[in-house]
């Protein structure tokens, strides 16, 4: 079992390494940092642009392969190159990852738990099931941007109704606010509630819907009927026996969903003004910032690796058939 996991891990490592390499090559050919530098105001002299590009290892007059080698040789040392504004990409990325994690951790946890509850609640009774299905149906049909904007509108209404500022929705805190630490915490929480809810709601519907589907697919299986025949109530048989099997295919899906979220809840970040990873990628692409995009791809690769490993582990624990 450990051998299988290790082999999978080795394959995955190889895969994401290739993916990161390709991503760098693609970013280096497709993005145009020269245009960005030349468009600055006042226009810098050509020699300065040239010098800057060389410093950044992003000069399109250096052969692509040379640039690639320079970049690759830096990666093991943790040197991901510098972004266009000159700060090391690693330093900027750390700040961004912090923001992304603060934004997502609570949302993802809440979303998965809520999703599991939604999926199971459907087995309790017909009416509950109808209600849950209709609810998830509607939320799934609403894109993330719209959810975020609607949440803001609702919060605005609550704020104006109560006359106090209960919710806030731009950034992580109010810039220039008084920074006393207890006040600071509530301040941060006020900013956190809405984006967290937006993310949790999105996650919960996906997980809930999928779990409900797999649960219903296993509900007719022989071992569940056997459990009922043995004398368990239907609900008990479903929760004790069917759920364990039904949850297995949900784990990789949920893990993959979380990975993509961490690597870019771009919509939510944009609407709520959080400076997280998703926003960083989009801005860097628009700026033509090769090193920043490459750094982002490294991060995304690591996230995919870790979540893949975690989901493999979880499936191994849950599914006795995979021990073979």
């Amino acid at each position: 079992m450990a051998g299988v996991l290790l082999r999978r891990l080795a394959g995955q490592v190889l895969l994401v390494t290739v993916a990161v390499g390709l991503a760098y090559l693609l970013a280096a050919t497709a993005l145009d940092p020269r245009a960005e530098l030349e468009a600055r105001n006042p226009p810098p002299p050509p020699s300065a642009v040239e010098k800057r590009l060389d410093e950044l290892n992003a000069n399109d007059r250096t052969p692509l392969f040379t640039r690639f080698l320079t970049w690759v040789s830096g990666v093991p040392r943790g040197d991901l190159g510098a972004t266009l504004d000159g700060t090391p990409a690693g330093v900027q990325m750390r700040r961004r990852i912090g923001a992304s994690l603060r934004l997502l951790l609570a949302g993802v946890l809440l979303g998965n738990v809520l999703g599991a509850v939604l999926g199971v609640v459907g087995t309790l009774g017909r009416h509950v099931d109808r209600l849950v299905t209709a609810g998830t149906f509607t939320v799934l049909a609403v894109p993330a941007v719209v959810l975020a904007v609607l949440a803001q509108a609702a919060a605005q209404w609550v704020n104006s109704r109560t006359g106090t500022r209960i919710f806030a929705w731009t950034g992580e805190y109010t810039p220039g606010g008084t920074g006393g630490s207890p006040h600071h915490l509530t301040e941060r929480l006020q900013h956190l509630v809405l984006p967290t809810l937006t993310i949790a709601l999105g996650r919960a519907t996906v997980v809930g819907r999928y779990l409900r589907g797999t649960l219903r697919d296993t509900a007719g299986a022989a071992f569940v009927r056997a459990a009922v025949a043995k004398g368990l109530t239907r609900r008990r048989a479903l929760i004790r026996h069917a759920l364990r099997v039904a949850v297995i295919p949900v784990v990789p899906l949920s893990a993959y969903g979380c990975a993509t979220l961490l690597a870019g809840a771009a919509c939510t970040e944009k609407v709520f003004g959080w400076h997280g990873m998703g926003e960083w990628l989009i801005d860097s692409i628009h700026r033509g910032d090769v090193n920043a995009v490459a750094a982002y791809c490294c991060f995304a690769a690591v996230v995919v690796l870790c979540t893949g490993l975690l989901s493999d582990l979880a499936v191994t624990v849950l599914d006795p058939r995979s021990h073979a």
Partner: protein
Amino acid sequence: MRTYGRPLAGFALLALLGVLAGAGPYLTRWSWTDVDVTAFGDPPSADHWLGTTASGRDVYAVALRALRRSLVIGLLVAAGATGLAAVTGAAAGYVGGWADRLLRWVTDLLLVFPPFLMAAVVSRAFTGQVATALLLTGLMWMMTARAVRAATRSLRDEGYVLAARQLGASAPRIVLRHLLPNLTSLLLADATLNTGAAVVGESGLSYFGFGVRPPDVSLGTLLADGAPAATVFPWLFLPPVILLVLILLAVDLAGAGLRGASNPFRERG
């Protein structure tokens, strides 16, 4: 009838949206490119049914134009992605061995690749709705391909496949004539759901400036324009939202219904 009620309702709604996108623009005298210099950012009125944008364009006409764009892209992508997934998935599942490993590798690789980077590369080289459709196809076929592969594995040793093989049918013939027809229900359901995913994907790409570009419009660009001031100018934000939600509801009803109807082990309900 009960089984098919949902998919039928979904397809009916989708057809209705198609008709609206096709015929709706003829109901008003404003075309989506017209600029009314007497009305900048006006709320809905008798003249402009859904109001005007800040630059004086008629929201009704613009929204329907966007609906048409999004629907066309959605259908193109659904056809492309499902077709590609059907052929590659069935081939990998039937042939097995190296083909299977190759498909797994490629899909894994594409899954870890940041979609926005691909979008940036493609949108630099090509623009327009066909490019957007191609891009989304490239981003979306992998999941369906995996599902098709798994389904093919389970069909591979069925009697009729063995019989065809014994009769000397070639591998491509078996895949195209025997395996794919038996996967129709799965493919149909996935194509429907892919339409919705493509419409959302397009709106996401356009929202961040990678898909359809101004002056052309899609539901994504309208969302991006309307979102910042949604509470002040709701008539800019609501039409694309409502259209998008309707498309997704229709597609979801149709696709999920089809999928449910095609699984005999599923409980009815």
